[in-house]
């Protein structure tokens, strides 16, 4: 089968590939063997399922992810536990079958989609809660469990996870480990996802099972796994430290006319409020406007959630309200803030009510450079007429994830690609000023290769050891599918065409 797939690698017609393989009988052997240890219903070559599973969160047209060599998997397998996962991965390894680990597929930028076809290993069935220990305040779970299911279950014990993504309604625990896990709910207060991990079970690309904890002295550490997009293996189980459910939740929010004052207040909430916010955000009025009927009138909205015991939240609110006086903030309607918090998960998606094709990029910006980055964003955006909006959430100590949305439609291709060009220019700006992008995936790897060469080189050392054939979650971090110069050329052309078409009007 390996031989056949290698021969057919360059054949763009996937169905022909499947046919030829089938005739030779090798694909049938792979499936049959897998079905011996994984429920036959959870091994699928249904073409509709493959089409659906070979993509991730995006409203962009499919050619945006179909550039990646063979974007479509040829089989999906859903193992139910670590042992069957290990056996499956080992089998794929021996057959040199490319593997892509997937759960909810909500990380974007093709973080969980195939780049070389092969097998999608869907982790959703590895979702058991093995143990909740209210004394030790720990939980041991299958990495395929959704955050919402985990949150609901933990709440029965008066517990809650420390850090989780705003996409918690659908995303899974393993995904937040593999993607940065550095910004989200609870992160400003409790630290990153990585910091909540006590230990995890990793299945290496060759199928070997490794248990890795904070104290592990082996070849691979927790720091290697967190935020590396699964290039070293699949996280099947994880033990997390958790916190207790608090009894008080307070939300504060203020509007600012001045960007500088808004950002200074945002930074002050992190550095000068004794008990850090549970969640902290700054958004442009446009961001609010693109999804809401009524929204604050000031240009910038800074809002925070404090979640703790009543005296603590009360103190935090008092300090926050004192601080805002220094920055000319104007109070925002409490009901608006409550609604924002209640539907926090929807915030970044509801903007899709305004646009069929939302394009966005996520920047990882140091708070020290947040103002200069925003100023650059505003200056550049003034050159264009398309809708753009920024939304920032606080991440690990001293950093923020700035998400910039461009709202366009593929039926207006010049504008569409110019929006992407705009985001691309900002990406280069971010890297040049010493910052980075937040989610890398397949799509953004070429930036790392250009601007973070040392980091890539470091990661490559371990990757070459664990996966020399590069068949496990390929084209992430180490190897790029695209080249910077090609992208730059494409976007420069788009900007030129945009200028010309705009001048004509």
């Amino acid at each position, binding site marked *: 089968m390996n031989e056949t797939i290698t021969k057919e690698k360059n054949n763009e017609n996937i169905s022909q590939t499947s046919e030829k393989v089938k005739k030779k009988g090798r694909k049938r052997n792979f499936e049959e063997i897998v079905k011996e240890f994984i429920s036959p219903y959870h091994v699928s070559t249904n*073409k509709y399922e493959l*089409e659906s599973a070979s993509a991730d969160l995006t*409203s962009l047209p499919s050619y945006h992810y179909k550039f990646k060599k063979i974007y479509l998997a040829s089989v999906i397998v859903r193992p139910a536990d670590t042992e069957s996962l290990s056996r499956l991965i080992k089998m794929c390894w021996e057959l040199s079958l490319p593997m892509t680990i997937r759960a909810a597929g909500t990380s974007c930028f093709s973080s969980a989609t195939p780049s070389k076809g092969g097998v999608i290993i*869907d982790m959703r069935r590895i979702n058991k809660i093995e143990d909740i220990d209210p004394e030790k305040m720990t939980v041991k779970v299958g990495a395929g469990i959704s955050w919402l299911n985990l*949150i609901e279950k933990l709440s029965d014990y008066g517990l809650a996870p420390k850090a989780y993504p705003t996409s918690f309604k659908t995303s899974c625990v393993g995904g937040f480990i593999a993607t940065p896990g550095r910004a989200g709910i609870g992160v400003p207060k409790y630290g990153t996802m990585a910091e909540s991990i006590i230990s995890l079970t990793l299945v290496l690309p060759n199928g070997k099972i490794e248990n890795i904890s904070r104290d592990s002295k082996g070849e691979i550490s927790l720091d290697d796994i967190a935020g590396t997009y699964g290039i070293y293996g699949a996280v099947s189980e994880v033990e997390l430290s958790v916190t207790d*459910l608090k*009894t008080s939740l307070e939300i504060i929010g203020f509007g600012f006319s001045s960007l500088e004052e808004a950002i200074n207040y945002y930074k002050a909430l992190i550095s000068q409020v004794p008990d850090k916010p549970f969640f902290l955000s700054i958004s442009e009025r446009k961001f609010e406007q693109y999804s809401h009927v009524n929204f604050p009138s000031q240009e910038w909205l800074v809002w925070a959630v404090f979640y703790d015991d009543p005296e603590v939240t009360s103190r935090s609110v008092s300090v926050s309200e004192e601080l805002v006086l220094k920055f000319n903030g104007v109070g925002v309607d409490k009901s608006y803030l409550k609604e924002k918090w209640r539907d926090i998960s929807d915030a970044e998606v509801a903007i899709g*009510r*305004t646009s069929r094709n939302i394009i966005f990029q996520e920047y990882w910006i140091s708070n020290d450079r947040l103002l200069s980055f925003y100023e650059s964003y505003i200056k550049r955006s003034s050159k264009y007429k398309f809708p753009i909006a920024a939304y920032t959430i606080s991440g690990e100590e001293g950093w923020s994830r700035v998400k910039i949305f461009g709202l366009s439609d593929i039926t207006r291709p010049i504008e569409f690609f110019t929006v992407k060009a705009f985001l691309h220019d900002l990406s280069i700006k971010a890297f040049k000023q010493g910052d980075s992008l937040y989610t890398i995936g397949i799509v953004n790897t070429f930036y790392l290769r250009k601007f973070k060469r040392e980091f890539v080189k470091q990661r490559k050392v371990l990757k070459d050891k664990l996966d020399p054939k590069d068949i496990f979650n390929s084209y992430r971090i180490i190897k790029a599918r695209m080249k910077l110069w090609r992208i730059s050329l494409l976007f420069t052309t788009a900007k030129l065409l945009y200028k010309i078409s705009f001048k004509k009007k």
Partner: protein
Amino acid sequence: MSEGKEKKDIRDVVTTGPPVAGLVSPSRENLIEPKTKKKEEKFGYDRCTHCGYCRHVCKVYNTSWSETDYAGGRNRILKALDRKDIKFDKEEIIPSVYRCMLCGNCKVVCPVGIDTLEVFQNFRKEVVKRGAMPKKLTGLRNSILNNNNPFLEQHTDRFNWCEGSEDGKKAYERAKKDLAAIDDKVAAKDLDARKEKPRKVGYFVGCTSAYRNKELVNATSEVLGKLGIEFVVFPEERCCGSVLFRTGLEDEALDLVKHNYEMIRNSGVSEVVFSCSGCFSTFTLEYTKYVGGNLGFDLFHLTQYALKLVKEKKLKIRYTKRSKDNPLLITYHDPCHLGRYCNVYEEPRELLQMIEGIKLFEMKHNRDMSWCCGAGGGVKALYGDVAGEIGRDRIAETRTCMVRIREDRLKEALETNAEVLVSSCVFCKNNLFQVANEDNSPIKVMDISQLLNDCEFYL
């Protein structure tokens, strides 16, 4: 007597955001209407951002884990078909299209406001037009079109249930008399015949109640009688067409719609009462669309009608089998067709809470976030009786999904410590009753008509 669960726990302190986000539907009042609906856009699926929020609420997906079994995954297939990235395969496409209970929970949580019910019913219509249909659907369709019911029963047996209910029998006889009178007057070319309205209230029984759940029809008839209503039934009643609408056979339902609509108009009633939520939603949504607005008669589910009458007549209600000090502990299951389809959540609750001798406890997932019982969308009809080794056959797996779905709902009911699970839909009642029986569950399952029939209404 067990104590119902009414504990106020720490989660109640946090009324917004996590951890209760999965239990409460997103607020929509302050969100803009989706601007991206183009004039020529028939369906909303191309606005799907594939955020996956529909996954969490999809009971089928959470059992099967298949990417085609939730709204976002199905939307991706629709987009791929549109772009011709993938070929239309009559056999392979069927599970993706029909393994959906059309419960509407995904519609509730969709952040970009896609009407998933419309999208997927239209998907089924398109698929049927292109010659793809589950095998059982042909038989179902033929039964409805030939026998006016989906059960292959004789049309002439539709009102056999009357023998079990005095009120029902009288209603039937009244209706026959009225029909004869109208016919006579029409025959005499009395143009005012149709303007006379001898009866105000008609009861549309529906196929499932008439042929499979006579106890519900009888109970409803008795309740209307207790409330002092001289109602009629519709002797020429045919299937409302709900099954056809849900399974992509909308065009074939239109004759039924025309017949039933004209039948009710000719009867002269101004209020039509339904005990079946499926019939009620079909009339409310599809029939009104057919006539382009006002039907000329008002539609009520039994729960709404009973509540209306109790309020108008200032009646009190007492459950005769228990007392105020020893109430029957119940929990209420929101049928998808009454709740999410028609936004009727509070009237049934208000009615139940008026009953002395009953205490209502809510399940964790209720109102617009209520879990489906597993019976809707044609899934039970198309896949319900198929045997097969679990795990080896996708059809059998669908059946397994359904079993798990209704087991999950019953489990949630048990968590409230209620003695009885009450619903207001014959499909829900049957499905949950089935699993309660199979599991020898301590919780009883009842339709609200049966509960009301055990009540007395007094001044």
